[in-house]
């Protein structure tokens, strides 16, 4: 009996918690489908009489969201792919090759991981202005084409692959390049997927850097565009919530499909700090 009560209690607490966690999302979607007068009704209405799908169309047209969306997709895709490429190569060198200065380089990079990225914004802004890259796609992409964090995670994974595979590939006459792309990368698929998804989420949601390096409306990513839209939307919460929904939705969909990898990625990388 006592065991049963404890079990029921657990579910009650978890359900209450889940309601609190979901509330902002439900409220967002609910508001996005209301008419203006409905949004300010007290007591609040959860399900509008008629679902105002037109709010989404209106919000999408109220600012160049199509362009923002495209920019976000472009920046996220290129930075993620680029970072993956540079990290896979570097992780291979750190895990399978011996070279002078290996330990020193590695320790220096580990040290840099501790430095807050916010501190680097000022000199990076100055560097990019010298290259005339401020307010271009380059500024949004180039600084993010490498990440030692990703290198570190992949290196750990590559090292867990047995050496015998490497020797076997060598005996078969495979080059290092071939071994990397045809053996090591396919074997490490789940870790690579995990870091990729985490990178996509981070890049999609990034705010401070794109805010600082873009001025032109046409270069804004979704979060920066949405922030600018809040001024235009004013108190039209239905439109604002519709816009928030389509900024959030792609990552929620990605999360629901790739949940397993995201959780695995966090468990692996988060624990190494």
């Amino acid at each position, binding site marked *: 009996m006592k065991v049963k009560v404890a079990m029921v209690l*657990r579910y009650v*607490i978890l359900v209450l*918690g889940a309601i609190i*966690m979901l*509330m*902002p*999302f439900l*409220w*967002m979607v609910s508001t996005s489908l209301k008419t203006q007068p409905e*949004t300010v009704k*007290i*007591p609040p209405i959860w399900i509008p009489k008629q679902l105002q799908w037109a709010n989404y169309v209106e919000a999408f047209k109220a600012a160049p969201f199509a362009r923002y969306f495209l920019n976000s997709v472009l920046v996220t895709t290129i930075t993620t792919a680029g970072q993956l*490429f*540079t*990290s896979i190569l*570097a992780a291979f060198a750190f895990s*399978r*090759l*011996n*070279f*002078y200065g*290996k330990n020193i380089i590695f320790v220096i990079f580990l040290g*840099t991981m501790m*430095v*807050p*990225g*916010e*501190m*680097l914004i000022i*000199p990076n802004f*100055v*560097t990019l202005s*010298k290259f005339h890259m401020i307010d271009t796609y380059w500024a949004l992409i180039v*600084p993010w084409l*490498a990440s030692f964090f990703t290198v570190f995670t992949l290196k750990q994974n590559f090292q867990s692959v047995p*050496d015998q595979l490497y*020797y076997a590939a060598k005996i078969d006459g495979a080059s*290092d390049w071939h071994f990397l792309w045809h053996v090591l990368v396919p074997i490490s698929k789940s870790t690579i997927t995990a870091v990729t998804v985490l990178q996509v*989420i981070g890049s999609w949601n990034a*705010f*401070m850097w794109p805010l600082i390096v873009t001025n032109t409306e046409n270069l804004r990513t979704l*979060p*920066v565009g949405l922030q600018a839209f*809040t001024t235009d939307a004013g108190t039209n919460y239905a439109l*604002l*919530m519709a*816009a*928030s929904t389509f*900024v*959030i939705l792609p*990552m929620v969909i*990605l*999360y*629901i499909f790739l949940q397993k990898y*995201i*959780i695995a990625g966090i*468990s692996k990388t*988060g*624990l190494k*700090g």
Partner: protein
Amino acid sequence: MLNEKPTLKSTGKALLYLLPMLVITIIFNIYPILKSFIMSFYTKYDFFKDIVQQWGWSNFTYIFHDPDFLLAVKNTLIFVVGVVPLTVIISLVVALLLNKIKWLSGLFRTVYFLPFVTSTVAIAQVWHWIYNSDYGLLNYFLGLFGVSPIAWLESPKYAMLALIIMSIWKSLGFNIVLFLVGLNNINERYYQAAEIDGANAWHQFTNVTVPLLSPITFLVSVNGVIGSFKVFDQIFALFNGTPGPSKSALTIVYYLYQKFYTEWKYGIAAASGVVLFFMILLVTLIQMWYSKKHVHY
């Protein structure tokens, strides 16, 4: 091959593999770290021509006498104290509950983790609406308990609290995942042994779970402190590009942003970044020292 001694040839080859990563990280990570420290000593600086006319400590003396910076440090610390302990406790409790159930545990996990993947800027707009003093959901609920409407985002008294609540909500999922991993790693035998010794559930918790989970608890706390030191996006989005009413949510990174982006005082901004660096360094050193001494494995 791993057992081989490094040679010039192997070094050359490794360099080729490292080159793309090195070029980017040297330009955008290593160099700017050094440059930040150097810039914090620039007292007269022509950004367009990149000429430094004067050097000195005056950026640091400036910020330590600037009431705004001191307020930013204070607010940052309040934010850390408000967010981290509660996040750790709540996520530990949720993880313990999730660990004890089977049915629907996957669904709960999905729900609790959801805020982590959502754009801070977008979800802050939702919270902005929830916190609305006239029509907001929160004041409506509080009204049911007889609480009169609170100006969450307009009153300097409540702005920080509003920021803290939203931040805790957003960061729970990440920490729950880490705690669940930690709980999974505890060998079932410890509990069996404790049970044989007659330990009840509470004693099992305090004598088995808590000590064996301490490395994770510690890691989660340190990550939380460091992450909270760097809070910016939430503030910008929740208070529409301001540091809150009467600067009540002005934090160190927000200060850095203002000095750098709106006032173009690069030296001062860099100096505040250096202070942030040392705060994080201090926490990291405490972490290393403490985990060597106190964390039970």
